[in-house]
Structures are given as C-alpha cells and as structure tokens.
C-alpha cells in the first residue's frame, strides 16, 4: 500500500475527511500537525527529499515556502468554482507560477458572550477591548491575527505593516493586554468563554465558537466596523516528492466540493471552504453556523493576515512576547 506524507493543520486529521480519499486511492495518508510556519519550514529543511508530499500552509506564507524551494509548481488544479476573493493568485504564485491553492478561510475577529456584553460595543474594535471590559477579555494566542487587528484598529492596512508601525501596534497591544485576563489557546479560550471566565475573545471567530454554539447559543462573533483579519490556508505539493501524481490527486480531492465540505466542518475547527460549490454538500444548519450568506460582505470588509518578511517577523514576535511578558 502506498503512503502519502502530509504536513498539515489539525483540521486535516479528521478521519471523515481523510478516509474517503484513502479508500478511493488505496493509500495510507500519514499526517503530521504543526504549529507555526517556522516550525514547518524547519521540519522540511531538515528532511530528505521525498520525505514529504503535501504541505498545508498559511496563505500568506506560500511565498516563503517557495523561496525556500519547498513547494513544487502546481498546475492543473482548477480554482474556477472558488469564491473569487479567496483564489488569491498573487499569494499562491511566485513569478507567475502557481505553487498552491487556497483551501479554507475564515476570520480572526471578535467572539463574545451576547448575554454579558453589549453587542453594540462589539461592532467597534476600539470599544471591544476598551476598559469597560477590563478583566473580561481573552486574547487569542497567535501574534499575526491579533497584531493585524491592532493594526486595523489603528487604521493601518495589514498588507502595509512595516517596522515603523511597530510602536503604534505595540501601544494598542499593550492597552489590549492591560484589559485582558488571559492570552489563550483554543481550548483555554473556549473554556474561558463557556465558563464565563471571560466574555470577549479578541482574535476569535467561527472556528472558535462554532463548536460551542450548540450548547451556548449566546456565544457568537461579529466583524466590527473597522473590519477584521481574514485567515486563509493553502495547500500544495512538496518539491522532491516521489509521488507527485498522488500528491496532486490529494490536493484535488481537498479542493473538490465534497472534500471542501468535509474540511469546512472538520472536527478540529470549522471554516469557510474556498470552493463555493461545497455549499451543495453542506446542510443548512452547517451553512448557518458558517454564515454562508454573509460571506460577500465579510470578504469585502476583511483584510488578509499581515505577511511580514523575515526581519519584521522576528520583530513582531518579539513585540508580541514582550507584551505578553509585561
């Protein structure tokens, strides 16, 4: 039996997603989750060619992977049925060559408990993390989206964040941190929300609250007036793979409507499928949770993750850790 090695985010580990592919192609898909592009690049750097076949990566980091020679050109994967805003050809290609395709997207914005806070306050970033909610805020523990939100709150487009903006962003972060009770990972943030530990999660979104919605419908999320950060993950074939065809088949499966529907509602976290045709395989409830119908509006008002170059990235991480540890 052939094996396919994929370096992925946790949503790909759902058997409901993988097993149909395994059966169809009689292969075993080995999955390794990772956190943070840096770790994935380091892992791939240290591997021998052929160790890995498929890579799921943050959309904004595709170019870094290409620079590092990690992704192979990807052709023949159709993006026709995709939401146009998330095809993001400029992100997924370098020098006109396509290396990856978007597979899933969603938002880092404000999640909150509608019973405990004034929903009107949540419609503005400035009021969402204001002193009014001191001690009732949790910040999602990933620097890029949160700093993106801070930038958006300060009127800086995420795509244009530069070293000069660090001070402004730092100031906003600091204020946010001052009002926050914790800086939390997924479960900690969910626990905090579910148990009333906090009422607002900055950086949250559908991926955070969807699983809680069934039991606590008062937990919801919104995209404030200033906008929010949009995340998108891409999938591509790793350079040097010994099974380029199988790898491409896998990519194709993931971006197919069925694959997309399964990925969107994967057990680890939910998110919008890049392929609009996936809607045919989703139930109405699922669509409601994903807010399928609001997507045109959301897509228009949100900005992609900041995509810092290596130096700026280090600076941003330092600033982030500095703020945590203050």
């Amino acid at each position, binding site marked *: 039996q052939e094996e396919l090695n994929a370096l992925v985010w946790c949503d790909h580990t759902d058997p409901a997603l993988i097993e149909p592919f395994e059966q169809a192609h009689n292969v075993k898909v080995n999955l390794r989750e990772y956190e943070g592009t840096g770790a994935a690049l380091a892992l791939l750097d240290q591997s021998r060619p052929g160790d890995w076949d498929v890579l799921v990566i943050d959309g904004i980091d595709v170019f870094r992977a290409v620079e590092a020679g990690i992704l192979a050109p990807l052709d023949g994967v159709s993006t026709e049925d995709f939401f146009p805003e998330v095809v993001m050809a400029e992100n997924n290609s370098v020098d006109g060559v396509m290396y990856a395709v978007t597979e899933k997207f969603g938002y880092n914005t404000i999640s909150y408990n509608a019973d405990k806070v004034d929903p009107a306050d949540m419609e503005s970033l400035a009021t969402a993390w204001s002193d009014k909610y001191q001690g009732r805020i949790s910040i999602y523990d990933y620097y890029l989206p949160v700093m993106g939100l801070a930038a958006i709150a300060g009127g800086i487009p995420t795509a244009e964040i530069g070293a000069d903006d660090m001070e402004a962003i730092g100031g906003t972060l600091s204020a946010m941190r001052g009002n926050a009770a914790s800086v939390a990972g997924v479960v900690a943030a969910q626990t*905090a929300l579910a148990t009333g530990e906090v009422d607002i999660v900055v950086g949250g979104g559908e991926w955070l609250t969807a699983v809680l919605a069934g039991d606590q419908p008062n937990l919801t999320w919104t995209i404030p007036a200033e906008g929010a950060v949009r995340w998108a993950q891409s999938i591509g074939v790793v350079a040097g793979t010994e099974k380029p065809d199988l790898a491409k088949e896998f990519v194709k499966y993931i971006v197919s409507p069925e694959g997309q529907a399964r990925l969107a509602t994967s057990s680890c976290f939910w998110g919008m499928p890049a392929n609009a045709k996936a809607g045919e395989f989703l139930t109405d409830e699922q669509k409601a949770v994903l807010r399928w119908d609001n997507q045109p509006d959301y897509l228009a008002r949100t900005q992609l993750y900041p995509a810092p170059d290596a130096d700026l990235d280090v600076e941003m991480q330092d600033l982030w850790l500095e703020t945590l540890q203050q």
Partner: protein
Amino acid sequence: MSRDTARGWGFVAPALLWTLAFFVVPFVVMGAMSLATLERREVVWGLSLANYAELAEKAYLWRAVLVSLEITLTVTVVSVVLAYPLAWIIAFRVPKRWQRLALLLAILPFWTSYVVRSYAWLLVLAREGVVNQTLMNIGLIAEPITLANTRFATITGFVHFFVMLLTLTIYANLVQLSPNYRRAAMDLGANAFQTFRHVILPLTLPGIVTGAFLTFVLCIGDYVTPQILGGNTELTVPQVIMVQLGRRADFPLAAALAIVLMGIVTMAYLACARWLRLDRI
C-alpha cells in the same frame, strides 16, 4: 586490564554507550548549537555569544528565567511543606494496615494522564468551576474570583502533582527509620515537636532534599502545566523555548535557553549536593 574488568565493561557498555550517544552527545551538540546563529533560517555554526547576549537584552527572555525560578521555588517549597505532614500522618497516625491503602489512594490520581490533569484543573478553577462555586456557597466570597489562567493556577497544578510524588518519597523515608528513634527521643523527655525538630527532620533531610531536587528539576523543565493553566500572561523558560522552536525554528536561541535552564539546575544541584542521594531513590 584483568579478565574480570573486561567482563565488567561488557556489562556496563550498552547502558554507557546509550547514555553517551543519546544523552551526552546531544547535550554537547546542543551546547554547540547555542553558540551558533540563525541567518535566513539557516543555522550557522560558530562560536558566537549572540544568543546569550540576546537573552540578556530582551526583557521577555530574561524575565522568563525569573518567572520560571519564582514558580519553581514556590512550587518546591509549598509541595514539601504540604507533603511532609501528609506523609507523617500516613506513617504515624494511620493504623499500619491502612497505610498502604492510604498511600495508594494518595497517589492514584498520578495515573490520570498528566496533560488531562492540567486541563482538569482548568475546569476546577474556572469562574463557574467547583472551587468558586463552593467558596460562594459557603459564603466566603460574593463574586467568583479569577483563579484559572493565572500563576496561582500554574502553581496549583504543579503542587498537586508534586505533593503526590513527595508524599511517597517522604513516607518511604519516615517508615524506614527505626521507630526506636522516636521512642528514644520521647523517652528522654522530648515532646512531639521537639522529636520532629531534633530527630526526625534531620534524619529524613537527605530524602527530603532528594525529593525536592527532583521536584525542582521536573518543575522547571515542564511545559504542559504553565501552558495550559498559566493563561500565557507570563511565560516560563520552557514556553519560550517552545515558541522559539514552533514559531520561528530558532534552534540556536532555544539551545541557549536550554543551556541556561541547565545552568540553573546545576546550581540547584550544587546547592543541595551535600544531602542528595540520587543513586538511592
């Protein structure tokens, strides 16, 4: 070399080689790595102190060292102070035939998965968790207080684990003492406290110090508990190391942090080497 010695080497060699290959060599490589630098995601070997300089420079790095030290020392002291009376009571107050059971009960939770145990504390300490509910029910507090996602939570999680561990070691130390020491002291007019202070404590000191040292080592190097319970509002050294690995794959800086951690443990070792009995656990 005599034949006996040659045979002896034969027996020791596998363990020794294993330790050399998978402990000493990695350790040395890590030391070397801490002197390398990261340039454009490539490790450049060399003899640079840049990582250590960065450590001294960046507040979040050196503060992590302080945070780790504070938490670890607190945990060690609190655990010993809580575990000693427990071990004492089990050894000297609980009737002989119930002692095994009491001890077994005291360490059974040890067998829940460590990761899950930390998570369980998160549930217990939550705003609507058991602790807050109880405190409110008995009227000690009016409003729930924030316990989860704090240093207090981290320390609680640690103390829970190490109290179990230390109770076991201290109990073992107490019962292996001849009961005649206690009898002799009392017979010569010492009261219970004096017996403890002048006789039992000094006699169990090596055991306590050994247990405390192991607590120190395990606690200062642990990533899971502060990550789950600490709320990320302050980072310990292992957390910072994992950030260096996970987000930016900065192995040299992570190695330098590890070396610093090792330095702290070594100092702790030297501080209590006089009483340590590591080869008799």
